[in-house]
């Protein structure tokens, strides 16, 4: 049964092989979504198990921790797995209709599952170096995905994306090396145990800097985010959507994991710097989103701005704040992906992403309008959709912990978010289609085209209405993070199932 923990990695691996061999588009179109659906099912089962047992761990190859590689699933991992599986599933369906002809769908799914494998690996691994490997798997897949269309812009964006992320990877690897040099171990739980009792743990700070930068680049925080706006708008919208919800959040996940589990020895420094970075990230991203008139660019900058909130939660570092950060991350993954999906639909209807050339969609396709409204309102924090609770928890945590400045920045950024969302809404939906009455390429969508966005919209709303459960889980996750004893014990001593 415990093998279940390894399956989020192994199933995509098998699927990669399948897709390599698969030459039929028909089969791929069928296999991709179904397999992603199964993956979703699997993660839900895992989550149920986590609810039952608290933390699940498997020692790969039967080599006991800390010697072998341990895969661990706690609340945080399980939540991330479930939400990212939802997104993967949705994108797999979306790809069927929105991937251009120039991209072979059976090839697309190779990298799609590569991304899934790397990401799931990053979520479940309990080993620092193994995490590096999964990061690379994820990164490599994303490199290919971003350049799949082979247009000039995509290649240019791809080069920038790749260059900065590779720097991040190398710093990560250096960090792993230094960490191992100083502690003699790679297992995260073991690291936590060693550093917990060591008064010299402060010497970890330099390694922590390297991880900080590495994750900062992945998570796209200020001033390390440049690659994101330079590249996210270049690939096909399916791929942008895939990235928007997932990639940076893995960075956030590792941030949370590392800075709650074992880089906890110098809170003054790290929490301060996290907060500073968070604040700048929010504002820089928010301002830039306000400056642009291309939906994907707006949304890309907006990703950055939202990352700031997640980091803010970590920087405040109370259980509530961390729960807020996790809640925010989960909500943001869903809503952000959805906005990208809808912008893809807009593009399909109008043939452009430029807001100045679009209009009249509210009248023409009210359902599309609602589909945009849900995630946009979620992001803007309109109650009772998911985003409100995420922001509320963070602001509450900030105020109650006395972090007034960052809270003020967060509120200011919320206004920036509102501005960007209203801008898209006003321009694309409310205003008349510009040009002399030419409605552009009118397009009515089929159910299959609506489905991904509808599903995510429903998830966003449910996350709001049933916020008590989601909050319960994130609080549970936060408590596990703040008091990692169960995690450590499960990894190092094993569990009985």
């Amino acid at each position: 049964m415990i093998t279940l923990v390894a399956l989020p990695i192994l199933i995509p691996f098998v699927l990669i092989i399948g897709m390599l061999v698969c030459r039929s588009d028909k089969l791929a179109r069928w296999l991709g979504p179904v397999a992603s659906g199964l993956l979703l099912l699997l993660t839900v089962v895992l989550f149920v198990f986590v609810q039952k047992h608290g933390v699940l761990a498997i020692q790969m190859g039967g080599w006991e921790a800390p010697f072998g590689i341990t895969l661990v699933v706690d609340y945080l991992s399980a939540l991330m797995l479930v939400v990212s599986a939802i997104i993967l599933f949705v994108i797999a369906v979306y790809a069927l209709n929105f991937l251009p002809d120039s991209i072979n769908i059976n090839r697309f799914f190779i990298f799609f599952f590569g991304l899934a494998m790397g990401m799931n690996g990053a979520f479940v691994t309990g080993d620092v170096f193994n995490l590096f490997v999964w990061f690379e798997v994820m990164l490599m897949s994303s490199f290919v995905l971003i350049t799949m269309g082979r247009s000039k812009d995509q290649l240019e964006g791809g080069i920038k994306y790749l260059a900065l992320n590779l720097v991040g990877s190398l710093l990560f690897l250096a960090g792993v090396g230094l960490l191992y040099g100083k502690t003699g171990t790679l297992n995260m739980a073991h690291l936590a145990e060693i550093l917990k009792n060591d008064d010299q743990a402060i010497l970890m700070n330099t390694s922590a800097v390297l991880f900080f930068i590495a994750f900062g680049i992945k998570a796209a925080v200020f001033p390390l985010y440049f690659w994101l706006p330079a590249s996210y708008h270049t690939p096909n919208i399916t791929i942008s959507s895939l990235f928007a919800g997932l990639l940076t959040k893995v960075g956030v996940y590792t941030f949370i994991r590392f800075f709650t589990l074992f880089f906890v020895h110098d809170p003054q420094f790290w929490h301060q710097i996290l907060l500073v970075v968070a604040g700048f990230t929010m504002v820089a991203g928010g301002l830039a989103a306000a400056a642009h008139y291309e939906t994907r660019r707006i949304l890309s900058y907006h990703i950055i701005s939202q990352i700031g909130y997640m980091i803010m939660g970590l920087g405040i570092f109370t259980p509530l704040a961390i729960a807020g950060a996790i809640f925010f991350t989960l909500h943001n993954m869903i809503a952000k992906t959805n906005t990208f999906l809808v912008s893809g639909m807009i593009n399909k209807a109008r043939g452009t992403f430029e807001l100045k050339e679009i209009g009249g969609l509210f009248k023409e396709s009210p359902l599309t309008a609602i589909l945009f409204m849900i995630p946009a309102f979620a992001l803007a924090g309109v109650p009772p959709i998911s985003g409100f609770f995420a922001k509320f928890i963070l602001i509450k945590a900030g105020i109650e912990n006395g972090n007034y400045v960052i809270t003020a920045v967060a509120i200011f950024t919320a206004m920036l978010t509102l501005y960007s969302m209203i801008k898209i809404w006003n321009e694309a939906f409310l205003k008349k289609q510009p040009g002399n009455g030419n409605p552009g390429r009118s397009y009515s969508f089929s159910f299959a085209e609506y489905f991904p966005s509808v599903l995510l919209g429903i998830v966003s709303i449910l996350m709001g209405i049933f916020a008590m459960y989601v909050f319960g889980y994130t609080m549970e996750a936060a408590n596990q993070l703040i008091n990692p004893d169960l995690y450590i014990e499960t990894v190092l001593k094993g569990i009985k199932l």
Partner: protein
Amino acid sequence: MNSVILQLAAKYLKWLFIVFAVLALIRGHNSPGGGFIGGLMAGLAIVYNGFAYDTFRIKERLQNFPEWLIAGGLFVIVLSFFPSLLLGETIMSGVWLKISLPLVGELKLGSPLLFDIGVFFTVIGVTLMFIFSLTQKR
């Protein structure tokens, strides 16, 4: 390069390389070598062959050869998981089979070796795919 000398040499060198690559693979568990090293060597052999003929002939004959190599290699890796699963052990655990052979002595075959073989083929495939892509006529 398209040189007669290199082509003459390639005829023999190719096999030498491959023999040594396989040697590196199967000896790898006990002496320097293993799937990566073996795979890279075998890959390089074919790369050399390509340079000698100034074309990558294998590509023309077997268009999808590298891809099959990769898929096959990965498949072997997956196969190597099954012994542990079937025996109910933690996945990826090594399962070993000891065979006593006359002359050779005791031979130990295990799923990690299978794993390494999978790596070997994958790496060959990858190397080939790299070089074929980079050198194709445009």
